[in-house]
């Protein structure tokens, strides 16, 4: 029994059906971790992208160094660090939050590069037109650059969304009960790993296909020339 659901070992099919609700609870945790992690990656990545583009070297350099460091060290190391080291300094976060933050942090290093490329892809002509019209720099960024950069970054961001989703099982090492962890517990208790693990694979496939289709749909919906301003 797990989460109040009994399993039925009478036949493989009955077993699969009986553990499906348990796995779906795990799946729900996986989705939550993905969403929180992706959100952190989007926000933190934008912050890093802006810092890296800062005119001052004293801001740009540390930001560059930090994202390089984050990108070149394994997610698992960062996760352990946040989970085991932070509490020594009095910062105690729930396992789920720690895990989602670690995911978001790792991916923010990648998303910051996507932002940078998207922002730089907006042509010099656009900046010159804005300057000739005396538009303030901030307004140029928010109303000229960003609307044109968004359609360009959506496909790459979509890929990272799927990647984050597939990295969520790493959180199981810090006791987060996401889908893989739940399946492993079922296997440990029933000595049947084949069916729960196969179901995890199948559910993952469905989830990533749906996410990719969503991203593609969004990509097709967005006008290539930028988010329209009437």
């Amino acid at each position, binding site marked *: 029994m797990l989460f109040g659901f009994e399993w039925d070992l009478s036949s493989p099919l009955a077993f699969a059906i009986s553990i499906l609700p348990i796995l779906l609870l795990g799946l729900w945790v996986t989705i939550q971790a993905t969403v929180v992690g992706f959100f952190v990656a989007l926000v933190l990545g934008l912050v890093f992208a802006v810092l890296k583009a800062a005119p001052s070297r004293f801001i740009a350099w540390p930001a560059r160094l930090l994202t390089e460091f984050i990108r070149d060290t394994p997610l698992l190391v960062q996760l352990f660090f946040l989970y085991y080291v932070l509490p020594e300094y009095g910062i105690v976060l729930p396992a789920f939050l720690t895990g989602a933050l670690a995911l978001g942090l790792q991916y923010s290093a990648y998303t910051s590069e996507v932002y940078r490329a998207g922002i730089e892809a907006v042509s010099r002509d656009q900046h*010159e*037109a804005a300057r*000739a019209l*005396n*538009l303030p720099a901030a307004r140029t960024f928010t109303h000229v650059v960003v609307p*044109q950069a968004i359609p360009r970054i959506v496909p790459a961001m979509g890929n990272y969304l799927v990647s984050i989703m597939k990295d969520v099982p790493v959180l199981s090492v810090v006791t987060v009960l996401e889908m893989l962890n739940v399946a492993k517990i079922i296997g440990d208790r029933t000595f049947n790993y084949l069916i729960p693990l196969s179901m995890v694979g199948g559910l993952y496939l469905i989830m990533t296909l749906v996410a990719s289709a969503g991203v593609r749909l969004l990509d097709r919906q967005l006008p290539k020339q*930028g*988010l*329209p301003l009437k």
Partner: protein
Amino acid sequence: MNDPIIKFEKVVKRFGDLTVLDELDFEVRKGEKVSIIGPSGSGKSTVLRILMTLEPIDGGMVTVCGEPLWHEQGPNGLQPAGEAHLRKMRAQLGMVFQQFNLFPHMSVLRNITEAPVKVLGLSRAEAQARGEELLELVGLADQADKYPHQLSGGQQQRVGIARALAMRPSILLFDEPTSALDPELVGEVLTVIGRLAEEHDLTMLLVTHEMRFAREISDRVCFFDKGRICEEGTPEELFTDPKEDRTREFLKAVLD
């Protein structure tokens, strides 16, 4: 006419080792329509880009409406201008770009109203009224809600002209406004520019390869060569009786 509204004094502009403007002296009086012609690389567009504050100068002095453009008064005399001074000076100038440089994600009307609302502080309704008036002027009254990619090149450039006019500049700069257009679309843009030249006291500075047009609308034509004015004069003088060999060669090459 009166005092010069634009004045270049020994202006130097370099790109790396290349000297684009070589101690250029150049003046435009208020309300004057001046065409700049010359071979590519002669520094024609650079003059406009310096005026629009898109390119800084490496030496000399540019004055617009009696005030230094790239310098401002500091505690120890003139110093390189800061962004606040450039913003103030830019308000006098408008520019029409070779590649139109419209904002592709904004509707035609929004392209024209964005800066008047944000920079001049007009209400959206005022800006739209002004925008619609200008679209009428350039013959695109029915295209306000379209997006640039739905228009032809000629129509896009006419929007570009309306967008620049919406800021009510006293000087309008045209940087090869028809060079990126298919030949059959050049006429509609030139018609609009010609009408502006006739009906407005706007000071106009036009870099162009359209010799016949330059001859029609200009008060004065300047032939640029190697970063300096090689020859200047009324269209009559320059086109029918050029004094310099370089001018003659150039005109022969482009008019044949």
